[in-house]
């Protein structure tokens, strides 16, 4: 599966993460409430930083957002309450989107008008999602999170991708909103014209995506990209880049709710942000050295394990 030294390192890393999730976290890290005196705080913070760093590498190599891996796995392995993990997860996804947004916009891959049109409605629903998520009991959220993560893993496993979807005619709403464009496709050395269709369906789906992102503190790239690409018909690269941009707006709305509810602890959020951002930079360099398809399969397996574990925790098992 892995052909180079860095590939072997990566394989070991994935195996380590899997073992952590399968073996009882109480034994490995102490996922349940751990008395503060049993381990000094900075050890947890350092562990979280290192863990987020590796998670950042895995996320970028597997082509998934950091947030979707962060929340289920960190809530399984660390002693933090789910409120703070979701708050940190939102900030991790937001920080990543903010730092990636500028170059994507400058290259013309992220499309401002497409993003603004979808984010407006998605940001409203993400506020409601955050409010509902912080109001419900933790075991209900664990259960719903587990089911959602398993669903995401299945979507990732089954979702097709279309590099350049065929859109024969743009719909009325996208014409009114002037959502169309041209971008330069490096691999083909030519400009690609694109337009979208089924805009009203896309808007409805972004309501649902925004709600789930706010409720669980997940980045929503896993859902944004298929909707842009397969439902609206935007080219894959435009879909991925615009998804990052939409995420920065939707997560901003939900993040404020978490901030105001006191669900963002700098002690948890900052090491996670720093670790994840460093990890994604290293991961980008590893991209050419590992087989991303194989890594993606392992990440989906990790998600399934984390999802099942969250379901068990939801049932108090």
């Amino acid at each position: 599966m892995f052909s180079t030294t860095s590939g072997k390192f990566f394989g070991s890393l994935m195996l380590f993460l899997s073992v952590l999730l399968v073996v009882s976290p109480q034994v490995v890290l102490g996922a349940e409430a751990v008395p503060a005196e049993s381990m000094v705080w900075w050890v947890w913070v350092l562990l979280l930083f290192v863990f987020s760093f590796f998670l950042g590498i895995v996320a970028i190599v597997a082509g998934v957002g950091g947030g979707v891996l962060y929340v289920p796995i960190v809530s399984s392995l660390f002693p933090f309450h789910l409120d703070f993990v979701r708050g940190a997860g939102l900030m991790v996804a937001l920080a990543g989107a903010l730092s990636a947004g500028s170059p994507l916009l400058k290259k013309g891959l992220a499309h401002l008008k497409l993003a603004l049109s979808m984010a407006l409605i998605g940001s409203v629903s993400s506020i409601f999602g955050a409010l509902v998520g912080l109001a419900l009991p933790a075991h209900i959220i664990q259960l719903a999170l587990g089911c959602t993560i398993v669903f995401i893993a299945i979507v990732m496993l089954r979702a097709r991708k279309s590099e350049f979807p065929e859109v024969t005619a743009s719909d009325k709403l996208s014409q009114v909103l002037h959502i169309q464009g041209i971008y330069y496709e490096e691999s083909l050395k030519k400009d690609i014209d694109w337009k979208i269709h089924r805009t009203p369906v896309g808007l409805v789906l972004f309501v649902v995506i925004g709600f789930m992102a706010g409720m669980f503190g997940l980045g929503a790239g896993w859902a944004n990209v298929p909707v842009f690409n397969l439902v609206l018909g935007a080219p894959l690269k435009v879909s991925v880049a615009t998804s990052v941009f939409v995420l920065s707006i939707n997560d901003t709305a939900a993040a404020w709710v978490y901030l105001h509810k006191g669900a963002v602890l700098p002690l948890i959020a900052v090491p996670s942000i720093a670790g994840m951002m460093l990890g994604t930079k290293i991961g980008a360099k590893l991209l050419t050295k590992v087989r991303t398809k194989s890594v993606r399969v392992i990440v989906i397996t990790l998600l399934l394990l984390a999802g099942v574990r969250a379901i068990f925790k939801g049932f108090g098992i």
Partner: protein
Amino acid sequence: MNNNHAHPNNAQLVYAHVLHWVSTLGIVLVVFGFAVYVFELLPLSVSIDDIAGNWHRSAAELNHQFHLPTGWAWVSDILKGDVLSFASVAYLAAATIVCLVAVTGVFFNEKNVIYSIISILQILVLVFAASGVIGSGH
């Protein structure tokens, strides 16, 4: 407005430019604020040991136990290390609003009515969330 060229339009470039500076400053502030917090360069409103000893509790329980301010009430304690670090994280959540304000000016200048309205509505949604009207309190 012309979309039909391979280069990003003016509004997009303005957004990208502002986002670059706002996000770079954000990362610097977050690192600076965290260093002030964990090295206790300023007094803390709640000790790190107390937070670490209770981070397995829900946000509502933790806030209640330490009488932590919700909404914008933390601003009055900005010279405390933990609050400064919190403020630097909150800055990240304000970054998008700054970018949207900048791009709304471009849409206005271009007399782009639809996107002027959309971006103003988007700013209102985010400012509403940031205001704490719906989020603060338990």
